[in-house]
């Protein structure tokens, strides 16, 4: 089903996989905090996270067992690579599930702002796509900071403490996280999804202030605050790959 090859064995642990006839490198990452084997397929390719002391034999068996799943995830990622953003070419940037057209304008300096129901991007002769992407991300982060902070207020009275900080940033595979210092991080790409999906992720992270795990107790906390969470979780499962691909296109 797949062949195993060690490539620069000392530095890069991993194996080659045969995914629908295509040879794909599955990188193995040993992580000090990993407790069990974990497979992840993102736009960057598949990855296996394993505890420091996990044996090669168990890892190979694990991958073999889940080969069908990796293949399905891999195929789901394939058609999602979108055409790159090009200055001046017609494009759209979604905001809360609504596609807002980008209106390009030549100017003396780079400016990005939302105006009514569209994005206006002024570019100068020497503006690069990288700069446009960074400026667009900056605007989304400001919108996100304000929106999430406002939505958070309603949940604060029922929480043991307020988060110490809220950061909106592009995240590779997660939608949100809560760190040990109680700072909430949320993926900037959530602003592409409908409002209830973004709010569900916020509620999810806030509930980690009560339960720092994904136990049934944790899900009861989520359910108490956001009863229809399954619909939003399913939305992310179904459309998450597309949203992340859109974020890579618009934010770089």
């Amino acid at each position, binding site marked *: 089903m797949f062949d195993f090859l060690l490539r620069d064995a000392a530095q890069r642990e991993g194996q080659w996989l045969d995914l629908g006839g295509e040879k794909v490198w599955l990188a193995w990452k040993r992580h000090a905090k990993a407790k069990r084997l974990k497979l992840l397929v993102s736009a960057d390719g598949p990855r296996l996270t394993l505890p420091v002391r996990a044996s090669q034999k168990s890892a190979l068996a694990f991958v073999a067992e889940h080969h069908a799943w990796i293949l399905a995830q891999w195929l789901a990622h394939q058609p999602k690579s979108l055409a790159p953003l090009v200055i001046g070419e017609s494009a759209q940037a979604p905001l809360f599930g609504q596609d807002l057209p980008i209106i390009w304008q030549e100017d003396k*300096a780079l*400016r990005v702002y939302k105006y009514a129901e569209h994005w206006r991007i002024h570019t*100068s002769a020497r503006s690069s796509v990288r700069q446009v992407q960074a*400026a667009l991300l*900056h*605007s989304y982060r400001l919108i996100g900071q304000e929106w999430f902070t406002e939505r958070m207020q309603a949940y604060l009275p029922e929480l043991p403490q307020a988060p110490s900080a809220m950061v909106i940033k592009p995240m590779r595979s997660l939608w949100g996280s809560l760190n040990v210092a109680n700072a909430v991080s949320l993926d900037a790409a959530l602003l592409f999804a409908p409002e209830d999906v973004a709010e569900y992720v916020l509620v999810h992270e806030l509930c980690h202030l009560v339960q720092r795990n994904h136990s049934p107790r944790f899900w009861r906390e989520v359910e108490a605050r956001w009863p229809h969470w399954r619909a939003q979780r399913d939305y992310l499962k179904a459309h998450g790959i597309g949203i992340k691909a859109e974020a890579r296109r618009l934010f770089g």
Partner: protein
Amino acid sequence: MFFRNLFFYTLPEISAVTDEALESALEAAVLKPVGGLAMQSRGFVPPLGESGALLQRIESSLWLCLGGEDRILPAAVVQREYQLKIAELEQAKGHPLGKRARAQLKQETLDTLMPRAFVKPSRVNAVINRKRGFIAIDTSSAKAAEALVSKLREALGSFPALPLQAEQAPRSILTQFLLGQELPEHWHLGEECELQDPAEKGALVKCLRHDLASDEVLSHLNAGKQVSRLAILFDANLAFVLGEDLILRKFKLLAGAVDGIENSPAESLQDELMARFALFGAELDAFYPSFARAMKLQAASPQSLAA
């Protein structure tokens, strides 16, 4: 001496708090000297020096001041004492100390050094404008501003204070200003700016005492940089550097505004301070609606933007 920076929060519910309620809340949270084993203490102090009322009022402007006392205990000093004690104890016992014993020793070292540490006093002024519904704090540090606002919240029980929210990214508006387009009425460019490439860890250019309309500056904008700080003159009265974080730095009342008080004979330091405060409050009151419109801020109350 007087307000060098302005860090704004909007106060949507300030009209519900009376001056008396505010004053008694400040009195309940007055600065206490830092305790023997505490690192710091925060509380309100009279704005006019050592004595007087905790709240000064002129028209719709209220002046208050958060005082602080911080113990200065350099980490290197603690570390040296701690290492000496460890070496001494380990030699006496003949074996290395465990984790718990080390933690205990560290705490003991801190406790013995603390009473010998210097106490550094500090003051942060703030002005509340009732009519416009904002508080302006004399600091450029988010931490210091939040400390003052949270002390107020603590004193008043509930006191909503929200950071300024702009409808558009401020750096986009500042860039537009620097290009000389749509500069609001009474606003003029100063001689200082900071230009930043928007990409993470992007290039940064600072211009001081520079003609901002020159081709050199324009060429940086052409290359895709955006304005993150911009010096502005408001009429002939105010000068400041406005940042993309909406903080006003290097805030100054200009000759046009100060003429009035410098020519009048000051009776005492307190009178002069009150005169300055009156002037500052009035200028800020006149400036805020223009600032809010220029930066497309969301209004805290309908009155906040009325001329």
